[in-house]
């Protein structure tokens, strides 16, 4: 999707801001295919905790990752928003469940600051830096790192299913 009137210069990035818990995050708008509001989530039994469920999207079944679960925030009541993201070449599309989606924020690429070294492992694996904006610190998320299979590989997020399987 192109946004008319905004220069697509190398040095600025347009970020879609999103909210999870009460923290502000951003994802490069080029990487977002679609935002689904009020999407009905279907939980999958025995799935790892970070999988929020599956949703139907244009003839596909999308696996949706819950950002809240990843961040260790309490699960939200009611319906959230689902961002449809493209994975890298090998992985299919997936969804990211967030509380709500803000708007498009233009930030300068140069203004990005790296993750602080004091950040815990799990967060460091997910965040790819942050930008200072008028609304506060916007933490950049990288869709590639949020891919369900990637998260599974990292092993930092203990699958909940395991303990249940034993039953």
């Amino acid at each position, binding site marked *: 999707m192109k946004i008319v009137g905004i220069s697509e210069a190398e040095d600025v990035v347009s970020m879609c801001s999103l909210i999870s818990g009460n923290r502000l995050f951003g994802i490069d708008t080029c990487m977002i295919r679609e935002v689904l509001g009020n999407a009905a989530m*279907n939980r*999958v*039994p025995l799935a790892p905790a970070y999988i929020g469920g*599956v949703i*139907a999207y244009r003839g596909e*079944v999308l696996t949706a990752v819950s950002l809240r679960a990843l961040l260790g925030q309490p699960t939200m009541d009611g319906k959230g928003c689902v961002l449809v993201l493209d994975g890298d070449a090998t*992985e299919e599309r997936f969804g990211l469940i967030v509380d709500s989606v803000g708007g498009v924020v233009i930030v300068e690429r140069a203004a990005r600051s790296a993750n602080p070294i004091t950040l815990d492992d799990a967060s460091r694996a997910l965040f790819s830096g942050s930008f200072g904006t008028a609304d506060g610190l916007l933490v950049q998320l990288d869709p590639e790192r949020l891919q369900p299979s990637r998260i*599974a590989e990292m092993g930092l997020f203990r699958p909940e*299913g395991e303990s249940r399987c034993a*039953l």
Partner: protein
Amino acid sequence: MGVVDELTKEFLAESLEGLDRMDQCLTDLEQRPNDKDLLAEIFRSVHTIKGTTGFLGFVRLERLAHAGETLLGSLRDGRLTVNAELVGGLLKLMDGLREILRLIELTGKEGTRATDEDTELIELMHHLNANGELEGGEPLERPVHREPARGDYKPAVTLAPAPAANEKTLRIDVDVLNRMMNLVGELVLTRNQILQSHVDSTTFQLLARRLNSVTTDLRETVMQARMQPVGHVFGKFPRMVRDLALSCGKSVRVEFSGQETGLDKSLLEAIKDPLTHAVRNAIDHGIEEPRKRALNGKAVEGLLSLRAYQHNGSVVIEVEDDGGGIPTARVLQKAVERGLVTPEQAEAMTEREALQLIFQPGFSTAAKLTHISGRGVGMDVVRANVEKVGGTVEVESKEGHGTLLRLRVPLTLAIVRALVVSSGGQGFCLPQGALAELVYVPWREAPTKVEWIGSAELFRLRDQLLPMVRLSRMLGLEGEGIQLEHGFYLVVLDVEGCRYGLVVDDLMTPEEIVVKPLSPVLRDIGLFTGATVLGSGSLAMILDVAAVGERAGVRAAAREETVAAVASESRPVAAASSSFLIFEEQWSGERRQLRALPLSAVVRIESVALKDVEYAGNRPLLQYRGDLLPLEDRGEVLAGLAATKSEDTATVLICQAPSVGGRTPRRMGMVVRRVVEVAGGDLLQSDTEICSERLAMVNERLTVVHEAFASGERLRDVA
């Protein structure tokens, strides 16, 4: 596949296809050495490859193709005659070409390693060519100074899976593509109209209907485009059969029919391996050596037939040989030795049941066993592969006359029939194929029917203990579900020879579901094969019934039990004491005569809508699970029901006679007035002087046993 550009990719796909076709042409050529057209076709193919390679700059390939072309040229001009050695050499050439093509596909280059194999092959070509010219067209008798060409085929090369280029590309008729485009255009127009209309407008209904028809047409067209003729898979068999037969020292002729039968591309890929396996088995173990065949009064040349045809929404592929058949006695003997069945069980098994033993995993793993027993190399793998795509495998064999392996696969994988069940408040789909029966268990009956052994729950179903698996507990859904007041449902599933009952809260609708693949993370859970969108719009996971059984531990334990069950089922006819299904057959008549059927002969009791009963001539027929079932209505129940109009369904017993002989026993339906009960009883010795019918003492009362099943004989042919 980034290394290869579009042009090369196309060339590769085309050339490989050409080579596959040539394999067949060459084997044909061996049969009909004087067929000029065939020769011309082979020549053309090699020539095309040579021409294109020169153009694309593959020097190595060109040189090899050139050598082949020269040889084929001499052949075409009549300077050489066809013989086995020549064909062998040419087949080797094909393998050489194929190998280079594969190398190009992998690396993008034909490989600079100027290995001697090329030179060797080219030399062989020259040699064959020169040989022929020396002898002036006389058939070649003298072997070439190196090893005879036929000796050094590597079966590994011929049997290697088809190259990736063939699997990723698909040839589509331009007409089909045009039709698709038209339909998409239609779809866009319809959408425009819908967007411009209001829900309450009068045209909305019309538009919805139009959308429906466009979607249906589009679906059909796309499915059609995915259909590939079965001949694509058959095509590689003549070559394989030739090589195998040579290496086994047998002579085998292959016959095909129904090559044009269409099958979904993905399914075609899926059955390729099982089919290859079956063909290999047939030649290796089925067809006897020429001398033995001659001794048995058969034609020296063995016959292998591959047939494909469509039947009731599925595609049937048959592999039949006229070889020695499967010696059931030895199968049983080995099964007992392997501890798969006890000697007593083996004793009671019918021939058909014994044949099923070759599909047992334990049967194939022992190499020695398969060698002696004749068949069964990895037959469990064949069955597993076919069942994975929702198909079935049957085997029929007559000792001394041959074996028939029948694969039945659905037309498409994408859409399957499934039963939607609910458990723990969520919907799940169970593929219809695995479903054996449904049992409703009200709470008040649960204590008497459910038994415990240790922590395992068992359900007493017609005097057999069935392991129970609670779906909600396995999926960790317990507690989320609603408390059920009335009872629960037991879905009896039958997968890969083991049965278990899946406990679910409720049954919903049977639906035709569209299978959607899951992401790897969810596939790793291991219990779901996919997901689907239900008619209600919600998503439901499709359960992998085999995996559910396995995780619950049913599989290993159940194997012995199922074997035991099979054995006991077959016993009633032989043994005097057994269970009978008692029913009333006559519609009219004051004296309600009770009749009985051995329970083992009854597969199911169905309630059939009268409108589903069809007639051919005066004979009632029922379409039942993809089979045409003849209905027997001796009590004239159908007429009675139609006359009174009191009910619109009839009770039909789906029966299957215990078979003797190689053929699948025919199923049939028996229309009855009312099923009374199941009871134990004794079959009385028949005494034709008292009564021409077979009698049994059931519940201390004399009951007539239905004649077709009274003796161990085959069910008489109703149709």
